[in-house]
């Protein structure tokens, strides 16, 4: 054997020693379901589009939102972001400002004129969509993408449903609503306004539609029986907000009482403030904690000077004054009357006590179950009448969350179901991996970074106009905010497993390709799983 100078032994590599045989557990890469995705009623792949936004790929990020939700700029304003409530980053500092990033992407798309090409071949099927609110828009958008011919019938003079006639302009500027609806129209959806559907079965037959989606919302304010004198001015919040949008400003007087504790009550109260009410008082029968309104809305209302009277009910309305009964919580936490009354001066009373759906279009010979005023649908949003689907507030039970986002989700789900139904196939159920819970993270790796706040209009500047209250993020701030995402449960290629393995048993496959374990050498120590920042590695027992 000849060896170089001073080398006395032949050298072999330790690669001959397959230390993988020592292993009793093996690491496995997994993908978990991120809590933000899980919480999104519209079914957005939130973490996925944040991942694109982190790299500044705003268009790719926007397209990923558009795969489920056609209204990102509207969502970025009107959504109550359950994704942020579920965000694991809360355990480190504060939730990622997902909603603000979504708005940034939605606005960027409008500025840049991005649109979604329809590439599916025409199916030859015609689908009717009744109502152009968020549910109808989402259904129409997804149906047209699937190659169907879509016609939307809208009863009002303009499209948008509650987006236009319910949510006040200071929360959702109409230019944004117009832009996102126009984009859907440009994709080939035909909108016919001032076209009220009296009977859906007739409309389907007359228009030769193969299927229909009804998303007519809950447009009628509830009027409970409150004894009122002739001079009392009582109106409901939905009609009031609708009137404001059509330029028919209601004469509310100086002192306005809003009765109710939901988001619509907040919208009505904040609108009254902007219409010049000197005093707006919100009356609610239970406590602050029990108010169904979202906290952000309640805080903004209070900031804008809306006064709140909890544990109070309106017993009687007369011209210029209301009789208010004080309530108390009983042992079960329910509000009950105390028999103690007081008078409250008020020029008008606005009722915001919930909304009903006008169900007359289902009258006649259709097998649609509408018990308790709600359209009952199956898991695929289909009613008892074959080919007739329904979603949004009209199909949401009284306990369900009635939000824009939930309506979009219904519309999207219904579109997929309609497509399957038209093709005569059944939708395969989607398999959702287990949740990426916070306890699987290794939070040490995430750099400390508190949330970027969106600019807000000063309270003093909100009184006499409907200017948008919440501003948008700059590109730099949006990038920062997107990068606060921890990518819970899904590999984001941080190279940590590749670096921390004492046995070089992780193979880096290159950008976008992630990694692979080299089980010839992996001793199963588990450091990669412990040190994975986002919890995307499981250790599973070996069975020798």
């Amino acid at each position, binding site marked *: 054997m000849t060896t170089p100078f001073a080398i006395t032994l032949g050298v072999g590599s330790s690669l001959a020693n397959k230390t993988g045989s020592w292993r009793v557990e093996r690491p496995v890469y997994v993908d978990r379901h991120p809590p933000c995705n899980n919480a999104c009623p519209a079914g957005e792949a939130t973490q996925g589009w944040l991942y694109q936004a982190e790299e500044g790929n705003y268009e790719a990020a926007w397209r990923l939102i558009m795969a489920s939700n056609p209204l990102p700029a509207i969502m970025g304003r009107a959504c109550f972001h359950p994704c942020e409530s579920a965000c694991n980053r809360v355990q480190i500092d504060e939730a990622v400002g997902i909603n603000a990033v979504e708005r940034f992407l939605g606005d960027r798309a409008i500025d840049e004129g991005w649109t979604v090409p329809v590439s599916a071949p025409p199916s030859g099927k015609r689908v009717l969509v009744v109502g152009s609110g968020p549910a109808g828009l989402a259904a129409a958008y997804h149906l047209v993408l699937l190659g169907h011919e879509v016609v939307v019938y809208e009863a009002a003079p303009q499209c948008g449903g509650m987006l236009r006639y319910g949510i006040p302009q200071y929360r959702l500027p109409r230019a944004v609503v117009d832009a996102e609806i126009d984009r859907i129209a440009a994709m080939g959806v035909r909108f016919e306004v001032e076209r009220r559907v009296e009977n859906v079965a007739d409309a389907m037959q007359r228009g030769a539609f193969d299927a229909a989606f009804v998303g007519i919302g809950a447009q009628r304010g509830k009027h409970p029986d409150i004894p009122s004198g002739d001079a009392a001015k009582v109106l409901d919040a939905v009609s009031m907000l609708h009137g404001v949008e059509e330029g028919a400003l209601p004469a509310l007087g100086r002192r306005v009482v809003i009765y109710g504790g939901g988001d619509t009550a907040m919208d009505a109260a904040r609108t009254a403030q902007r219409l010049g009410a000197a005093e707006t008082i919100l009356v609610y029968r239970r406590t602050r904690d029990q108010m169904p309104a979202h906290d952000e809305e309640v805080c903004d209302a209070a900031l804008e000077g809306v006064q709140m009277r909890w544990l109070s009910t309106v017993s009687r309305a007369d011209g210029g004054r209301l009789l208010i009964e004080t309530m108390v919580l009983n042992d079960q936490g329910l509000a009950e009357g105390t028999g103690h009354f007081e008078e409250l001066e008020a020029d008008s009373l606005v009722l915001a006590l919930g909304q009903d759906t006008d169900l007359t279009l289902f009258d006649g010979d259709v097998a649609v179950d509408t018990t308790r005023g709600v359209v009952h649908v199956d898991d695929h949003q289909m009613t008892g009448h074959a080919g007739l689907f329904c979603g949004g507030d009209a199909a949401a039970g009284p306990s369900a969350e009635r939000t824009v986002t939930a309506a979009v989700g219904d519309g999207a789900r219904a579109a997929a179901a309609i497509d399957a139904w038209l093709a005569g196939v059944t939708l395969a159920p989607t398999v959702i991996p287990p949740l990426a819970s916070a306890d699987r993270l290794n939070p040490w790796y995430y*750099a400390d970074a508190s949330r970027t706040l969106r600019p807000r209009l000063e309270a003093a500047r909100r009184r006499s106009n409907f200017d948008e209250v919440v501003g948008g993020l700059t590109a730099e701030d949006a990038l920062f905010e997107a990068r606060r995402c921890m990518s819970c449960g899904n590999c984001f290629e941080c190279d940590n497993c590749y670096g921390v393995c*004492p046995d070089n048993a992780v193979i880096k496959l290159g950008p976008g390709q992630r990694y692979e374990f080299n089980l010839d*050498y992996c*001793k199963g120590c588990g450091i990669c799983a412990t040190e994975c920042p986002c919890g995307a590695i499981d250790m599973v027992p070996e069975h020798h």
Partner: protein
Amino acid sequence: MLSERTPVRFYQVGSFAVGNRLVELERRSAQSDPRRANSLSSGHRACAGCGEALGARYALDAAMRATRGQLICVNSTGCLEVFSTPYPETSWRVAWLHSLFANAASVATGVAAGLRATGRDVVRVVAQGGDGGTADIGFGALSGMFERNDDVLFICYDNQGYMNTGVQRSSTTPGAARTATTQAVGPQPGNAFGQGKDVARLAMAHEIPYVATATVADLFDLESKVERAMSLHGARYLHVLVPCPLGWGTLSKDTIALARLAHETGIFPVFEAEYGEVTSSVPLRHRTAVEEYLRPQKRFAHLFDKSGAVTSPDVVARIQALADRNIRRYSLVPDEDQ
């Protein structure tokens, strides 16, 4: 130091994770590079979860990057030598030389002198060993290398004992730790307090150009220290804390977590010094009580009961006092008014 490494922009995992797709290529760690040297290759016989194997690859890959592969490595006897080179195999992918337990520093001195004499001093020299080959058996040779200011970086991978021979005490074994030769029996169980050596401070006392400490829990810090060391000439010393699942009685998956706790508790201060003066230290991100570091380690099990409650508060307080002294001495909590 930290402020130099903290990017102006925010990159999701900052510089804490090994790699980051959002960071420019040239600012990424040597370990994130798919073409890294892999100085210590697969197939070595270190225990599962070995901190020393990890630390050695981290340090030597960084040195290989800094010297563009122009590196000779001298190893003293110890775990690192035994598990990497059982005949006829070697795990080393660097020019590597082993002589005796005591003489790694002297051999490295000779290698550096030989390279200089033959006009090849572009080739740099690293000597490395465990705490036995550094603090105990090889200390005389090491002190001589420091004193002569020979052009060698000496790296000690400190796992706080003679681990591959059966976990005997070394002069870097901490107070109260149980080893085969310091059993957890008698009035003061485990290793005695007040003995042993702080080799980084001994190196500083030689006033050599560069002394630094690091752990396997902070890769960017370790790599930047190796790079800094390789940018200098003369005697340099790097002391890397490398947890040992076998000798410490810890789970193999927790090796990095323990190194992190050693830093975050103040038990192992991470700093650098030039010519005998401390020039920077890595502040604690989340200051942690020492018992969080001690509890997972079986060598400290006699300080706790089965439920994990402290049964020897005086001993834990004594260790906490040592950690607090480190925090003061190296300003590990910058805003704290000590």
